[in-house]
């Protein structure tokens, strides 16, 4: 009896010690989470119910900011612009990165050289990259339209025609897919070779092997990248800002580059409508969580985790 009693005390003591050590190790993140994430999210909710310009104390306005938001044309427009980039941009960029990774995963000579080349654009700061692409896409002197002209196509007014500003950004986005390519390559190199050997013996076609072996094996990576890109796309800021600045406006031609985070930034730091901007931030939070949840829920159907995990 007493021995057993001592044992449970021993286990409890050990567990307590583990708990303290564990919390000590993770305390940097826990403190950071409380100060830099949990507090701001809750504070943001409070501010979203107030009128606040930084200089005088916040005044309570209830749900006014939210009802105004739904009457605001620019809110819808900026949401549309952002969803456009998400829907038109994310999937093609991921598919492109996967195709490049598949090609690189084949035992080709100079793999490391190609890998370096594809990764290089991701080293270019977004501001510098946007400046470069502004010049490449210049409708009169830019290289892209000069090249198109050479093959007999009249290039569009990329950054001036509101119909073409977002496609310009999507085009530029392909240039920066190197990180996803490298991540996919890492995932591909982890797929056990014996699966393919077995499939070869069974005479399965390459196409079939891709869908039954490769794609399921890298599906956790696809889920991870999809989520990361979705969030990045909802936060689309720098490139849009730089392109828009060139036309001496915040939203670009006919506000076609007024992305959600740009409009939010404008409301908060140009107009000092901190309450209204906080309501926008909360809406963004809800929308992103909704999309992430949908992806996670549906992912059970297409994401396969290996048996060892």
């Amino acid at each position, binding site marked *: 009896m007493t021995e057993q009693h001592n044992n449970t005390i021993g286990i409890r003591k050990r567990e307590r010690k583990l708990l303290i050590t564990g919390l000590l190790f993770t305390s940097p993140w826990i403190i950071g989470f409380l100060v830099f994430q949990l507090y701001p999210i809750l504070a943001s909710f409070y501010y979203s119910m107030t009128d606040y310009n930084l200089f005088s104390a916040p005044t309570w306005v209830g749900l006014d900011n939210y009802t105004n938001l739904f009457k605001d044309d620019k809110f819808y427009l900026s949401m549309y612009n952002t969803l456009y980039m998400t829907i038109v941009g994310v999937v093609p960029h991921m598919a492109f990165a996967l195709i490049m990774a598949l090609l690189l995963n084949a035992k080709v000579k100079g793999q490391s050289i190609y890998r370096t080349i594809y990764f290089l654009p991701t080293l270019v700061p977004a501001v510098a990259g946007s400046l470069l692409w502004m010049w490449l896409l210049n409708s009169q002197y830019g290289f892209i339209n000069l090249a198109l002209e050479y093959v007999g196509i009249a290039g569009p007014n990329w950054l001036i025609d509101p119909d073409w500003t977002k496609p310009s950004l999507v085009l530029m986005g392909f240039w920066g897919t190197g990180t996803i390519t490298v991540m996919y390559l890492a995932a591909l190199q982890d797929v056990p070779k014996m699966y393919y050997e077995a499939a070869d013996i069974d005479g399965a076609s390459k196409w079939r092997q891709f869908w039954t072996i490769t794609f399921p094996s890298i599906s956790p990576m696809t889920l991870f990248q999809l989520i990361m890109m979705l969030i990045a796309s909802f936060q689309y800021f720098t490139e849009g800002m730089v392109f828009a600045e*060139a036309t001496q406006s915040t939203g670009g031609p006919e506000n076609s580059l007024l992305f959600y985070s740009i409009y939010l930034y404008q409301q908060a730091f140009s107009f000092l409508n901190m309450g209204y901007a906080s309501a926008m931030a909360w809406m963004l939070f809800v929308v992103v969580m909704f999309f992430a949840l949908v992806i996670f829920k549906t992912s059970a159907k297409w994401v396969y985790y290996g048996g060892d995990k």
Partner: protein
Amino acid sequence: MVNKAVSDGSLQSPVKKKKGSIKRKMSSTLKHLVLGLVGLCFLGPFAYLLLTSIKSIDDIFAVPFVWWPKELFLENYSNAVNAIPFFRYTLNTLFVALLCVLGEVIAAPLTAYGLARINFKGRGIIFMVMMGTIMLPSQSTMIPLYILFNKMNLVNTFWPLILPAFFGAAYYIFLLRQFFMGIPQEITESSKIDGASEFRIYWQMMLPLSRPAIFTVGLLVFLSSWKDYQQPLIYLNDPSKWTLSVGLKAFIGEYNVEWGMLMAAAALFTIPMVVLYFFVQKVFIQGITMTGSK
């Protein structure tokens, strides 16, 4: 990629083998063709950046297009450096980036080790909440944080850019956790039996083992801080405190037509990153492969 197993297979007749090798050669050429063409598209803009940066205005706007400048116009570089306090901005950027790296490589591995190697109650919840924060758009926390830093009189200082790094970011903690989980338990077991404390095991065994992973995280932090635009834009109003990304933006409004100068400035902003990457890429790719593979 996998047809090697088939075409090298000894089961096949010699005729078939020859046919297979021709097919393989063709597919290999095709692969190189595609990879090369795409590579060209990736490198092209770089070349264009550098070429434009050494062209005079006449060459830049010349019709028909001039590939190589008729005369080198290196003044773009000196003009760009003189038009803005370039060295001041570089120092500011470097200072912020290095301190962010320092903070992150102290905080992130600690938390990652706790989550990967210490089996304490509540670990699962902490990990889940942490992964949840990866999905948190920075815009949702931006305004209260600005107000907080404003109340602390830290707006227009580098603190708001640096301080959060000292508490670890979820993404880097996740990468390091994956790495730590991959290290076999047996390595640390005997030390544990000998009574070494967790911190000692962490400090003397895990950290030395994980140098490439931590190095990779450090590099990622450095890159993202060097490139960041939104945070400096929000927190730094005083032009003497600007980082390169904000300083470079000033060109757009004021020197709208000076493409040569703009490209020179963009090149000066980018080249340090490319040089850095060139020297560390082997370790970096190794680290990415180890940390990001699952």
